[in-house]
């Protein structure tokens, strides 16, 4: 990753956290002074390097892991915003990235019951829950949206 792409990646994440949503290429262009086409080209390189994930069709930001640009079943309240995480791991990751306590709301995929977990001082307030990953680490990026 070259210095320019690294800086653009960091601006993308900073703006995501500031706005509480995924920034557009136009917003990154305005923030950095780089042409929108340059922003999109850098995003493509960052996507290839798994530094962020672009939507397969629109090529807009789909994930700035652990943040999701689209609504998911993993909702997180933290640092004054509502966020969506890409998975259960990322839900805790949002609290970690923001260095904030939070409240995670999701549902059990088996029974559909709501699961609500508070995170305080980096600890979950309900330790009875469990986390399952179907996909092993070697294949996480084969299909990151499925993972």
């Amino acid at each position, binding site marked *: *990753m070259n210095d320019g792409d*690294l800086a653009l*990646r*960091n601006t993308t*994440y*900073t703006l995501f*956290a500031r706005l509480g949503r995924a920034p557009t290429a136009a917003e990154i262009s305005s923030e950095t002074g780089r042409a929108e086409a340059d922003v999109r080209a850098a995003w493509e390189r960052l996507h290839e*390097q798994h*530094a962020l994930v672009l939507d397969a069709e629109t090529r807009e930001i789909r994930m700035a*892991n*652990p943040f999701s640009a689209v609504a998911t079943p993993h909702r997180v309240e933290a640092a004054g915003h509502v966020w969506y995480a890409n*998975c*259960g*791991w*990322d*839900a*805790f*990751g*949002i*609290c*970690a*990235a*923001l*260095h904030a306590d939070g409240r*995670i709301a*999701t549902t*059990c*995929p*088996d*029974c559909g*019951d709501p*699961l609500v*977990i508070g*995170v305080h001082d*980096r*600890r*979950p307030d*309900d*330790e*009875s*829950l*469990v*986390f*399952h*990953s*179907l*996909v*092993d*680490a*070697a*294949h996480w*990026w084969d299909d990151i949206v499925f*993972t």
Partner: protein
Amino acid sequence: MNLFRSEEHIARWLAGRTPGTTITVSKLCELAHAWWSDRLSPGWRPRSRSESQAILDRLGLTGPFWRLP
């Protein structure tokens, strides 16, 4: 990658599929903080594979399932 009410719920949800791996929510939270806490840091840089693997190893997440490519 989902949270479940209990291991019984996972078994029912799998419905005969090959299971992946299950960890406690406490371990997950620990992993999340080790893995993601630098993502908004101005000094963020990409981690190498060995650095990422070291995080998993340090948390006791070892074995073939947790082996990065």
